[in-house]
């Protein structure tokens, strides 16, 4: 390349083009690998169906989520109420759908926030190194060292802990491991020849990070984010248990599960259905994460 200094720009473009092609075929390989991971495929389909159903709750649901009917409380599953009714006579199936809407949204958004912060911090630290790295990593240590659930309990006590607040709280406390993983991966990738080469070719910092480094740590980020969705759903239910979740009458799977605890013995369906919803969702998320890990792992 040194012989063709004048055509550097073209070469650079070609190089980038080349990598893009490689990436595209990588994606194809990953996709075919993922498809072979049956459990992951099934999970992905289940999740997709669940998510679409829940998001379409206002259209799909047979009742309104807060339609109280004191004449028909605690009905067993029947033809009129597919999954029965709760202690206030509300249709459980309807609430499960609306609850899923909130729970899945909390899961996705929190995981997104966590991943975004984690990636930004990790990438910045890993790429620039030196003082910036040191500062950001100490910050990560700090956030990592404070016991998370107690801290969330404190934050959960703040006024107006509605859905948005909850998403922010969960998101803000789940970025640390992503940051560390991304930083570690970047440190490793930075050593690689093609990054040095891209730098030598005059590519800017941003371009190098975006085009060369992020794609290579992509698999860690994606897997982390996937698992984060499941974690966030579980955390939401834990906070509900402690009375710090989303305020009623807005349903979430967590607060539905919590509300039904008192009558677990006599009205088991009230506790089993939201429990199963959480279980299935988180299970599928994890299987999918597992599949993605295999699919994206370049060494396999």
């Amino acid at each position: 390349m040194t012989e063709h200094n004048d055509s550097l720009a073209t070469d650079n473009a070609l190089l980038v083009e080349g990598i893009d092609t490689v990436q595209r075929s990588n994606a194809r390989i990953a996709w075919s690998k993922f498809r072979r991971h049956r459990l992951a495929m099934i999970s992905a389909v289940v999740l997709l169906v669940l998510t679409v159903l829940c998001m379409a709750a206002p259209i799909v649901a047979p009742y309104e989520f807060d339609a109280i009917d004191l004449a028909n409380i605690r009905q067993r599953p029947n033809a009129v109420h597919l999954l029965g009714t709760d202690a206030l006579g509300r249709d459980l199936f309807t609430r499960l759908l609306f609850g899923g809407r909130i729970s899945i949204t909390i899961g996705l958004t929190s995981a997104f926030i966590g991943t975004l912060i984690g990636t930004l911090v990790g990438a910045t630290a890993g790429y620039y190194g030196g003082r910036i790295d040191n500062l950001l990593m100490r910050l990560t240590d700090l956030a990592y060292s404070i016991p998370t659930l107690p801290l969330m309990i404190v934050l959960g006590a703040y006024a107006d802990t509605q859905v948005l607040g909850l998403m922010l709280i969960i998101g803000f406390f789940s970025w640390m491991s992503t940051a560390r993983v991304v930083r570690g991966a970047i440190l490793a990738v930075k050593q690689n020849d093609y990054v040095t080469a891209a730098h030598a070719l005059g590519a800017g910092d941003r371009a190098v990070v975006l085009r060369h480094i992020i794609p290579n740590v992509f698999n860690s980020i994606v897997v982390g984010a996937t698992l984060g969705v499941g974690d966030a759903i579980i955390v939401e239910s834990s906070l509900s248990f402690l009375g710090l979740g989303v305020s009623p009458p807005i349903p979430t799977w967590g607060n539905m599960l919590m509300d039904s605890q008192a009558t677990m013995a006599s009205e088991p369906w009230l506790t089993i259905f939201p429990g199963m919803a959480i279980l299935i969702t988180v299970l599928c998320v994890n299987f999918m994460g597992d599949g993605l890990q295999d699919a994206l792992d370049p060494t396999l």
Partner: protein
Amino acid sequence: MGRYVIRRILQMIPLLIGISIVIFAIIQAAPGGPEGTLLDRGMFVDPAAIDAYRARLGVDQPVYVQYLKWVGAMLSGDLGISFQTQRPVLDMIAERLPDTLRLMGVAFVVATVLAIPLGVFSAVRQYSAFDYTATAFSFVAIAMPVFWFGLMLQFIFSVRLQWLPVAGTVTVGVDTFGDRLRHIIMPATVLALHYIAGWSRYMRSSMLGVLRQDYVRTAYAKGLTRRTVIAIHALKNASIPVVSVMTLSIAKLFSGAVITETIFGWPGIGRLFIQSMHARDYPMLMGIMMMGSFMVVAFNLVADVVYGFLDPRISYD
């Protein structure tokens, strides 16, 4: 090595100061104050009594004054006096710690004994029926909200079968080993399940990585049996990252298990934290959070040192 440790210890100081500021600020800023407990009974309370209460606790002073006082006392080993119980925070933590450690310790040991073999076998027989079962098990364990699982166990084993007691560490007046064992089974199971799930996954992937390494292939090539290779070469190397993960889990032991302890009436640190939170018992909350954070920071260092010790490829300078 010695210099590395000293440097790390020095680095802990600003970290701990940072942590203390963050914790203090967040706890102090939480809405409502310790006077809330005065109103908790739902009875009339003279407003003058509320002011007097706040004044005696010192929460009527500016926040930075409270912080400096608190840090000053902490440096001399005094974590303050609990608002609620009028007792030294340190005493109360010391009182609760043994039960927390016992519960967590049992869960920890059970989890270690089960998770490591589970992970190893899953990896060795990747994609086998065993592997899938183990995977499904750990995912189910991760996907079950703790409180749900705990109350479910109670319902089955205490209410229906009447085998195990619901709450406490011991039947008062019956203090035998068997009795204590019966009390610890359910909470320890709830906690252990999550560790097993997490660690066995870790062990599996670490083992998978190692099995693909050149030296393992070389060992096979030298004609060593599969059993020997796995037991001697692979297991040792695969354990290294898992050990460091487990070391960090030990650190988290000290902050207790908030939900499990609440459900099983277990007198540990986690429960203490919840009680103190409702009462806005600032010194107690700060004490528990600081201790928890300190343990993580300290064990982080331990983990790194252990890692370096186990893995000769890493050198500290």
